[in-house]
Structure formats: structure tokens, C-alpha cells
């Protein structure tokens, strides 16, 4: 078996696209590429701006050493086309005629619906009043209420790390593409993904809480029932259900936590900061690994906060062969997470990202 997917998908990078839509488009097609599809990445003259976006792999910003670009474009072919010229558009039409699917970052619909499945990305979907409104991942997370959920109530709301708004939209675009290519399309060939709808959808408990469930959630910071707490060598995520409380008290070797006022959910709710103080004191001399090993045995859902470097040496990830090592002809060996899935135990190893216009020869 060569892969789970076959066929050709075109990623159309427009010259002037907000970075967030580019990241979404590139993640969706990266997954398709790693799964086995042929992905043709159409870059504007000068290349995808993500080639020059951080984080970088070295100090020399040669245009090849963006970790972001290398991660998001594994296994794709690169072709530069000037879509502002008639010849560029004609070439794109020829490519789309033979393709099974295309992902577009909004913009002009020329060449659309030529028989292939089309996924169109936007910031705001079907909200005519927001047409043309500038947006970023941060402002979309603000409108989607996700910012309101994270951080201290008295301080500025916080975004999730990385590019979660764009990447979640990228996952939605991938799934929309798979729906279009499969037997469920019912003849419908065009799918739309918007950053704001994806964020609202992920954060559904907040709008649902405000509109009709009651008790709308908001960020509680240090007062949250689930939060991170310090231990000897870092932090743990304090995550538990009420039924876990007795086991958690034993894990902390703290009989007083099992007594009033901490022995009821209401009592714990009123004393959350006191509980954190007691747990941090109890865990001050113990490592994450030590605490996690015991939590695992007692079936308590605590988790150690791990850093990216620590993930490289993580036993679970090593055992599952999750990190791929690929050889790039200029950058040397690159280590990155693979598509987070296996099929009958087989993983989908990525191949290096293309140099700019590397594959133009095969389109002449």
C-alpha cells in the first residue's frame, strides 16, 4: 500500500492572502500529501510568504529555513504562477481540469467548479456585513469567544499557543475535501470553511451557555478547578472528576485534603486557591514523572506539562514512532510530528517540502 489517498489536489496560494488562511490551506493539503495524494502547490512570484515566517531553523533566513514552511508543505510539488497574468490563469485552469480537488484562499473564483471538488477558505464565511473586514487569528478567536475562556479574569484574555485558529480551520478544510471526494458529496462540489465558524464551533459551550444552556463559562485563571500547578521540576495539569478526589488526596499524601471543607464539591469550589497551595506544597519535592506514574496507576487524569524538546524523548511517542525524521537536501535532518493517525499500524511518513518552483519542469 502506498497510501490511504490517491489523486491530485491543488493548493492555490494567492499573492495577497492573510497569513491565517494560508496556514489553514497548507495544513489541509499537507495532511492529504502525507496520506498519499499528489499535492500541487501554486505559489505566487516570490513564493509563499510562509517561506519567510518564524519559527526559523537557523540564523540565516535564506528563504528555505522556516520551520513553519517545512512543516506545512511536506511532500508537495511547487509551481510558481502569476495569477494576475492571463498565461498564469490559463495554466491554473489546465491543472485544475485534471485535478480531483482544489483548496483556495477565498479570492477570485475563476477556474472554480471545473469538475473538481473545491474548498474555499475565508475569515468570516456567510457574514456579508464583515466582507472585507481585516482579521487575524487573534481577532477571530476574540469574536469566537475562545480568548474569553483562557487567562486571568482581571488580566488580558489569552490565545492558545501556536496557530490553533488557522490549523483547526485547516483540519475542517481537510475533512470537507474528504467529504467532497467521497460518496457523501451527493453531487455538491463546493465546500466553505471560515475561521470564525470553526472557532465558534470548537468553543460551542460558550455561545450555547449564553444563549440557552445557562451558566455561560468564562475564564477563571488561578481560580479554575482545572489549571496547572507547580511541582519539583515543572508543572502538572490538575485535571480531575469528583470521583477522583479520594485518590488525589492519597497521591498528595495529604489526609487533611480528604477532610472538611475539602471533602465535598461545594467545599472544594469555595477553597480552590487553598487546595492549590496544599497540593503545590505536597508536590514541591516530587517530580512530574514520579507524580504521573502514581496518578496513572490510580487512574487519576493528571498530566505533566511537557515541552517540545521533552516530547522528542517521550516514551509513548518513541514507542509509537510518532516523530518522523526526514532528510532535507539543504537543511539536513528534520524531526517533526507525523500525521496523528495510523492505519493497520502503519504511519504516514512525510517527505521534504519543495524548493520554490522546484517542479515547474513537469508542467511545461
Amino acid at each position, binding site marked *: 500500500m502506498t497510501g490511504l489517498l490517491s489523486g491530485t489536489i491543488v493548493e492555490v496560494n494567492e499573492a495577497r492572502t492573510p497569513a491565517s488562511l494560508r496556514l489553514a490551506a497548507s495544513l489541509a493539503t499537507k495532511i492529504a500529501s502525507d496520506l498519499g495524494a499528489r499535492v500541487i502547490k501554486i505559489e505566487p512570484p516570490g513564493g509563499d510568504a510562509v517561506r519567510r515566517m518564524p519559527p526559523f531553523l537557523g540564523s540565516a533566513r535564506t528563504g528555505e529555513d522556516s520551520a513553519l514552511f517545512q512543516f506545512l508543505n511536506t511532500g508537495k510539488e511547487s509551481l510558481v504562477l502569476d495569477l494576475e497574468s492571463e498565461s498564469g490563469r490559463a495554466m491554473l485552469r489546465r491543472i485544475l481540469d485534471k485535478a*480531483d480537488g482544489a483548496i483556495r484562499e477565498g479570492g477570485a473564483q475563476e477556474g472554480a467548479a471545473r469538475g473538481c471538488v473545491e474548498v474555499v477558505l475565508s475569515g468570516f464565511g456567510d457574514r456579508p456585513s464583515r466582507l472585507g473586514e481585516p482579521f487575524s487569528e487573534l481577532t477571530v478567536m*476574540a469574536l469566537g469567544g475562545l480568548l*474569553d475562556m483562557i487567562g486571568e479574569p482581571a488580566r488580558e484574555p489569552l490565545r492558545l499557543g501556536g496557530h490553533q485558529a488557522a490549523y483547526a480551520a485547516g483540519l475542517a478544510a481537510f475533512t470537507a475535501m474528504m467529504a467532497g471526494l*467521497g460518496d457523501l458529496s451527493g453531487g455538491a462540489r463546493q465546500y466553505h470553511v471560515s475561521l470564525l465558524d470553526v472557532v465558534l464551533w470548537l468553543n460551542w459551550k460558550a455561545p450555547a451557555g449564553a444563549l440557552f444552556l445557562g451558566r455561560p463559562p468564562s475564564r*477563571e485563571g488561578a481560580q479554575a478547578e482545572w489549571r*496547572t500547578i507547580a511541582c519539583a521540576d515543572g508543572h502538572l495539569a490538575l485535571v480531575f472528576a469528583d470521583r477522583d478526589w479520594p485518590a488525589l488526596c492519597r497521591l498528595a499524601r495529604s489526609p487533611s485534603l480528604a477532610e472538611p471543607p475539602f471533602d465535598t464539591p461545594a467545599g472544594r469550589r469555595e477553597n480552590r486557591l487553598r487546595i492549590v497551595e496544599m497540593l503545590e506544597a505536597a508536590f514541591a519535592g516530587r517530580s512530574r514523572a514520579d507524580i504521573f506514574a502514581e496518578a496513572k496507576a490510580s487512574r487519576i487524569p*493528571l*498530566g505533566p506539562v511537557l515541552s517540545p524538546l521533552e516530547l522528542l524523548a517521550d516514551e509513548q511517542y518513541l514507542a509509537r514512532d510518532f516523530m518522523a525524521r526526514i532528510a532535507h537536501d539543504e537543511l539536513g535532518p528534520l*524531526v517533526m510530528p507525523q500525521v496523528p493517525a495510523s492505519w493497520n499500524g502503519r504511519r504516514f511518513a512525510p517527505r521534504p517540502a519543495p524548493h520554490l518552483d522546484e517542479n515547474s519542469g513537469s508542467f511545461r
Partner: protein
Amino acid sequence: MKGTPTRPLRVVDLGIITAGASTSAIIADLGADVIKVESASYMDPFRQWDIARGKPRWWDDSALYKFTNRNKRCVSIDLKLKAGQEAVLDLVRQADVVVENFRRGVMQKLGLGYDALRAANPRIVLASVSSQGEDGPERDAVSFGSTLDATSGLAWLTGYRGGAPTISGRDVNYPDQVVSVFAAGMILAAVRHARETGEGGHLDLPQRELASFLIGEEILAAAHAGRDPAREGNASADIFWQDCVKARDGWVAVTLPAAEDARRVAAAIDAGLVSSPDAIAKALAHWAGERSADDAVLTLLAAGVPAARVRDAQGFAAAPFEEFGWALARDPEGGIAKGFPFQRRGRPLAVRGCAPALGEHTRDVLAGVLGMDEAEIERLEREGVTAVSPD
């Protein structure tokens, strides 16, 4: 590669709570026949969340369950009974996909491990949505979504500058939400493969790996540099300045992609010449504090930079329904339902049917899908296999 419609895609849905049930809900929204298997002895735990017990049929009352299980049918089959397991294997023979997110090992105990499913139907795709995957030393570690924020590295990257790592928390549980968007696509890809090749397979979908994948560039960069990234609050290395500023009546998120954007904003707010991110931060904080969030957003958008009010519960309550786009929908009874992470043109996704009552479609499915006659259906009822009252 162009798919030719064959018979409608059918899913045997053993998914529960969010991660599993929401994955099969997306496939149901697209038009598949999703048959959720529950029983009086084991319901989706979501049926017991946030409800008033003691009401008649309290198990059909959970708003959280209804949100996650629309467009599905529900058959009551007790998987702990031999006759129930046999009935589910019969369903598997008529299906393309089985979705499950039980604890690892439960499917085998029920006699429904991948080998048993494949013996019943070699084309079946078993999609297992789990915390850590099918193997490895952490396979059996229990978790909620926010546990995986921590163990995936996402919490390491989230937090105030100089502050502690931060999880998405109980009301977001980000890895639980996002996994269904990815898992649904993987399942559709696998079904297509299975229909083309005649060979199914076991799809292993660990949420923790997905959360790490979603910070892939940071892992790649850290591996190359031998150095971990720092938490940056709302700042981002590719952006000149970005944060939230406090207006009189709420927070406003602002992104100034480049220095020229900061100069334009400085002119728009009469802040004089600003040259550094710190200077524009101070000027914006001062300026925003003297006006309403809505006024601040209007001025900033007019200056051509991304700006938005940070919506909270009040903001959602005040928003017109159209503002929820595809993310919320109306069900056939006019109620509000969870919507869709994407939308389809021509044949729009819609909530065609409300979430089913426990066992609502038992007879339909036993007779219509499995072809059982009345005597067989009554036998299963008598043996308690298809009971529908947990009380």
C-alpha cells in the same frame, strides 16, 4: 479517484461524550446513516450530564447529548449480552464504519475488537478515537481533554509572558473538540480507500498526537535548535505587535502585522510617532481606556488593522443569530443546535433530525437494516437485549 455513489455510507456509532460522538455527528451531518448503539445498561454518559433526575425519561433530556447526536438513529442493544454482541456484528456486516472511543481494551472485552469486526466484514473501517493510541506505555493512562493540553506541549506554549503554562480548561477541553474535525476526515478517506480496494482497516486516532501535531512547527524548530520556545502571551514572532487592550466596557483584541500598521494606527489615535512595539502598546492601552470597546474597534478597523471585541457571554447573548453562521443551527423543532465546522454549497448541511431518544429506532434498525422478523425482535426484547429504560 472520482467517487461514484454506491449505497449510502453507514456508521455503527459507539462513540460517546464529545470526541467519539461528535466525530460520527459530522459524518451524519454529511448524509450518512449513523446508527448509535446504546442500551439501558450502558448509555452515552452525556445523557446523564446537566439534567434533572427523576423526571420521566430523564435520559432523553440532556442538552449536551442533543447537541452532539442530532441526525443520528439510536438502537438499544446491550453489548454485555452475547445476543447483543451478535446483533452488533450483524450491523457491522451492513456498515462501512465503526466509531468508538471507549477505554482501550473494552472493545476486545465486548468481543468487538478489530479482528472480530474484520471477520464479520473485511471492508469495515474501525475508527478508534483515543487519548494515547492503541499501544505504547501510556496507552492506559486516563485523561480528559485538558490533560492532553499538558502532555502534548500545547500548554507549554500557552500562557502569559514569564507566567506558568496554561491549559484550555474544563469548558474548552480543546483536544476533545478539535479531534472530531480531523477524525471525520480520516474516516472518510479510509472509507473511500476501503471501497476502492475492498480492504478495510483499523484507524488509530490519538488525541494527544493530534494536539502535538497542531504545534508541529514548534517541535521541529525546538528539535533543530536544541532549545525550547518561550511563552509569549498574545504576541507572535511574525507580528509587529499583538495583544488585547482594555476599553471602558470590555477587552479589544488588536493585531498590528507590521511597523507600517503601527504607524497608521498611531496616526489614527493621535499618538504621535511610535517606533517600538512597547510604545504602541502603551499608546493603545491609554487610548482604549477612554472609550467603549465598540468605538475602539471601529477606529482600528477603519485604520485597516484587525481588531475585534473579545466576546463573552453578554456579547453572545446580544449577537444576532446570523452572527453564529454555520456554527449554530436550528433543529426541526426550532430549537438551537450545534452547527457545522464547514458548509456545503448546493446541498447545505442541516440538522434534519433531532437527537434520538434512547432506543428510538430499535425496531426500525432491527427490521429495516438486519431484516429481523417480529418473532426475533420480540425474543430480543424478552431477553432484555433491547431494553430502553435505565430505571
